[in-house]
């Protein structure tokens, strides 16, 4: 006799159906989980055993086999604890089996029998609704699951005992209510910025058309401040976008208390971010910053400090609007349609674009003298370069030296070239040749 409980495995923001099958047979006492479980899933044996003992049940002294079908799909994540426990409880008779057959279950167990929150409940709820099942999920994620469909049966127990009592009829649980996140304080306002009318206009254009934007200017011009104020002039998410954004946030475990928000995401990774952090991947093929910024803004401050490989890895998501993470056994696709905003200094001292100035320190050399000054305002002389395309986030100042400044930089000064910007025409960037270290005789 095999007891079956439905659950899900996550591939990107899709939830694939997984069947948990439990068989209790005479034989040597053992509790095995098969079906390519990863370490967290294999450890669920201990959690299930402890949770059942804490709830007043005991594992029978028989051979318990748990199969997670399909058997060739690697199972990752800690949400298999609860379905395994419920299937075992069904097999030993502590829960009615026909009750379990109409639900999809996910959740992690604590050693005292309480049910801990897991990520990805919203996509699981949508998948369960599509299959005509209800959902059993941890109490903290109940509000998230309630969004999936108004008439879907959702149970959000706090512990195994509460769930068992619900099925017995002695303590029936109410359906959790969908929750909206309270707006977290006021957003930064554009009126905090004094002057900079040209930059504000560029911000408006970028907000209106979804264009990408690069702020290039001296330090203190207000580039980071301006970029942080872009979300305040973006429209709220429409329902379809809201669903996609919420599913990604749910899979990444970022939905606090299961409450959805219709504010556009604003992500600002530090320039030491690795490629996996930015694009996605790593353990469990988690969504990266580009996916977390889907429908919103990805702000890269100090753009030249990012490694060139990381910047190049942004090309594909910007072109196609999605990022595909390839693993050994399967491919995972996350949506990644975002707006890129970047800020940079044209050179080390920041004054390269100021007319009549020679920069001797910098990575990039100054523009030719007769470039029109970007702004009438003396206090801000950076230029705003609004890039119009997904494929060229950088438009660099030209790398030609001024005719007057024909001095070489002092020997021993370190120079780093900026990585080639994607989408630039194939003209060589005329940085001076790298200094070779002098070998001691």
């Amino acid at each position, binding site marked *: 006799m095999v007891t079956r409980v439905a659950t899900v495995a996550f591939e990107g923001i899709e939830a694939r159906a997984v069947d948990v099958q439990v068989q209790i047979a005479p034989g040597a006492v053992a509790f095995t989980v098969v079906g390519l479980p990863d370490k967290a899933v294999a450890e669920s044996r201990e959690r299930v055993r402890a949770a059942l003992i804490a709830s007043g049940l005991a594992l029978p002294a028989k051979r318990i086999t748990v199969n997670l079908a399909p058997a060739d799909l690697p199972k990752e994540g800690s949400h298999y604890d609860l379905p395994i426990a419920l299937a075992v409880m069904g097999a030993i008779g502590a829960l009615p089996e026909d009750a379990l057959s109409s639900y999809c279950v996910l959740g992690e167990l604590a050693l005292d029998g309480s049910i801990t929150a897991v990520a990805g409940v919203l996509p699981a709820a949508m998948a369960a609704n599509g299959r005509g099942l209800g959902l059993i999920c941890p109490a903290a994620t109940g509000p998230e699951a309630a969004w999936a469909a108004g008439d879907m049966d959702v149970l959000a127990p706090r512990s195994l005992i509460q769930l068992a009592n619900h099925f017995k009829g002695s303590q029936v649980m109410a359906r959790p209510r969908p929750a909206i996140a309270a707006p977290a304080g006021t957003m930064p306002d554009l009126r905090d910025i004094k002057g900079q009318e040209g930059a504000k206009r560029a911000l408006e254009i970028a907000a209106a058309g*979804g264009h990408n934007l690069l702020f290039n200017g001296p330090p203190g011009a207000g580039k980071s401040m301006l970029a942080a104020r872009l979300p305040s002039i973006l429209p709220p998410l429409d329902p379809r*976008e809201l669903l996609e954004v919420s599913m990604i946030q749910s899979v990444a475990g970022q939905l606090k208390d299961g409450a959805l928000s219709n504010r556009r995401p604003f992500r600002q990774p530090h320039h030491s971010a690795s490629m996996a952090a930015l694009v996605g991947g790593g353990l469990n093929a988690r969504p990266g910053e580009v996916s977390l910024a889907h429908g919103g803004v990805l702000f890269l401050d100090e753009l030249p400090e990012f490694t060139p490989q990381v910047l190049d890895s942004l090309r594909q998501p910007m072109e196609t609007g999605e990022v595909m993470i390839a693993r050994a056994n399967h491919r995972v696709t996350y949506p990644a349609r975002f707006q890129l905003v970047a800020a940079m200094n044209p050179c080390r001292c920041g004054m390269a674009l100021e007319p009549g100035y020679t920069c001797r320190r910098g990575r990039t050399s100054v523009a030719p003298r007769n470039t029109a000054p970007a702004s009438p305002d003396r206090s801000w002389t950076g230029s705003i370069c609004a890039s119009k395309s997904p494929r*060229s986030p950088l*438009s660099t100042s030209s790398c030609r030296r001024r005719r007057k400044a024909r001095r070489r930089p002092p020997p021993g000064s370190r120079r780093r070239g900026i990585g080639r910007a994607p989408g630039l025409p194939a003209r060589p960037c005329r940085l001076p040749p790298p200094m070779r270290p002098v070998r001691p005789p």
Partner: protein
Amino acid sequence: MPASTTNATCPASLIEEAAAPDAEGTALIRHAAETMRLSARGFHRTLRVARTLADLDGEERVRRLHLAEALSYRGRTEGVAAARPMPSPTA
């Protein structure tokens, strides 16, 4: 097309139709494409921004001044660099 498509994510063929400039605008963008050596993608990019500018002004048709502003954002030094002869590399 999904309702949340913006000008920036609009397919190229559609943006050519939606942002078709008037006669003066067409002359400007043609001239700019030659002087600034715009690629086809650069051309479409400029059209997208010009379409946003026209939308911000509430105008149906993209005009020369929208295209001019869109071109002005196109890398102030990049455009100048393209138009200018390169100095010798022995600087």
